[in-house]
């Protein structure tokens, strides 16, 4: 800087805005063997992929909820604050309880953001299941759809082979029907999720529109 020029401006120290995502993963007995192994590798790929983006590393906050039983295996944290969990297949498919748990978890997280004056992006809930709910899921579906209408979150449902797609259709918001995973390509699915989070965490949109997401090569909509 030439002599006589003022110093450069100093920067306000603001917390990074956060981009919360809940991975809501089916680890019921039917997932045992190859499916759970592929799922675990997919989760790892998600962590690795987000880490490649400087901004997403600071902003994306991930929590992992498995079912059943419904358990928080990784609480919210940025990619460097957290570790990809290794899931083991066990028990039944309490999908309704799992969804309600995830919705409550998100609300609590938002409250803590607000309390610390941390700005945040619209949260995502990303559900993956290979079965049919073994509990009452109607209330969960109502809450998912209401919150989606109120623009509180974005809910994505993915069925793995064997999933009860008809029930998933009734849970997922009508404008975003559930996708059927092609084979066990969890890796591509999580890479897509990571790419989407990168777009979200660097985006700005009007209050009436949505971010255009990368094309989904790993799944298809069943009619």
């Amino acid at each position, binding site marked *: 800087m030439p002599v006589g020029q*003022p110093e450069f401006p100093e*920067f306000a120290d603001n917390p990074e805005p956060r981009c919360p995502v809940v991975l809501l993963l089916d680890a019921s007995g039917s997932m045992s063997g190859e499916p759970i192994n592929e799922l675990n590798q997919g989760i790892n790929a998600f962590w690795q992929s987000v880490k490649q983006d400087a901004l997403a590393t600071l902003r994306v906050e991930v929590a992992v909820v498995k079912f059943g039983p419904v358990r928080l295996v990784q609480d919210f944290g940025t990619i460097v604050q957290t570790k990809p969990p290794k899931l083991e297949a066990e028990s039944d498919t309490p999908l309704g309880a799992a969804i309600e748990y995830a919705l409550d978890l998100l609300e609590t997280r938002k409250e803590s953001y607000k309390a610390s004056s941390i700005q945040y992006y619209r949260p995502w809930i990303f559900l993956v299941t290979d079965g049919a709910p073994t509990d009452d899921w109607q209330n969960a579906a109502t809450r998912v759809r209401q919150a989606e209408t109120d623009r509180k979150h974005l809910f994505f449902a993915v069925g793995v082979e064997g999933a009860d797609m008809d029930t998933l259709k009734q849970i997922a918001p009508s404008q975003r029907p559930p996708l059927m995973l092609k084979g066990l390509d969890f890796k591509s699915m999580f890479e897509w999720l990571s790419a989407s989070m990168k777009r979200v965490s660097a*985006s*700005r*949109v*009007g*209050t*009436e529109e949505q971010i255009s997401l990368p094309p989904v090569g790993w799944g298809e909509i069943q009619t």
Partner: protein
Amino acid sequence: MGWKAILRSSIGTSHQQREMLCQDYGNYEIFDQVLVAAIADGAGSAKYADIGAKLAADTAILHLRKLYLRWFKRQKHQKHRFPENLHLDISEHNLEEILGAKVRKIFQKTLKKIIISLEKYAVEAGYSLNDLASTLLVFVATEQWIAAMQIGDGFIVIGVPEKSPEKNYQILFQPDKGEFVNETTFVTSENALNQMQVCFFSGSQSFICAATDGLERVAIITRANWIPYPPFFQPLEKYIQETNNPEEEDTYILAFLNSERLNAKTDDDKTLFLCFFDRPSEAKSTESSFLDCLKLAKQKFL
């Protein structure tokens, strides 16, 4: 004596990587002692955001210039028309209210003109209106008052000389964010007219700084209700105050906008506008009375 100003935009690193154009645009004009500035930040989601931003900002300036020239002409012919139009018993308080309402009307009309221009362009080019989405900041300032509007995010900050050193910068509007940090309102949004924030601020500010949201997070303390961070603004004020021809002496501003330090904090396009009103040293003190300011403001606007 009078206004001096500089405006520079710098493309964000994320846009550079994706070989996108800079979607920020700003422009300003100074006629007599009046400064008009407009800054627009094209929406990343809009296809032709760069065109929309330019059209919105330029149309705002064009419209306000016309208004000014019309007013100036009328002043010449009907020198004494204005004071008789006003009730003499209005208090200072509702005077400011009346002016606020007047200012709102002017900016509403400006916005309507902008939307008409955008619609016309969209039809001719075969675009949708949303392809031209951008935010918009516009202000008109004299040495004694500033009238401003804002749709969407970004900020206008003014120096307030009479306040204590810690609080000598004031933000005119809170950036318009929804619950979610990346959601804002654009000129093309259906609710733009309702969401438009307008203010009239009388005071003898010399320094005004406006910027797009690329600079928000380094200049404003977001967690404390959007308070300007003085160590960000002080060097900029010093620079513009001490530089005689800022548009020609822009090394400092360009070096700052393109600095790695700044790019580490934001990957977005950044536009920075600075202006300063040079007062002659023997001029009256900065404490001009509130009523003086209002009188001047009335003349300009009514």
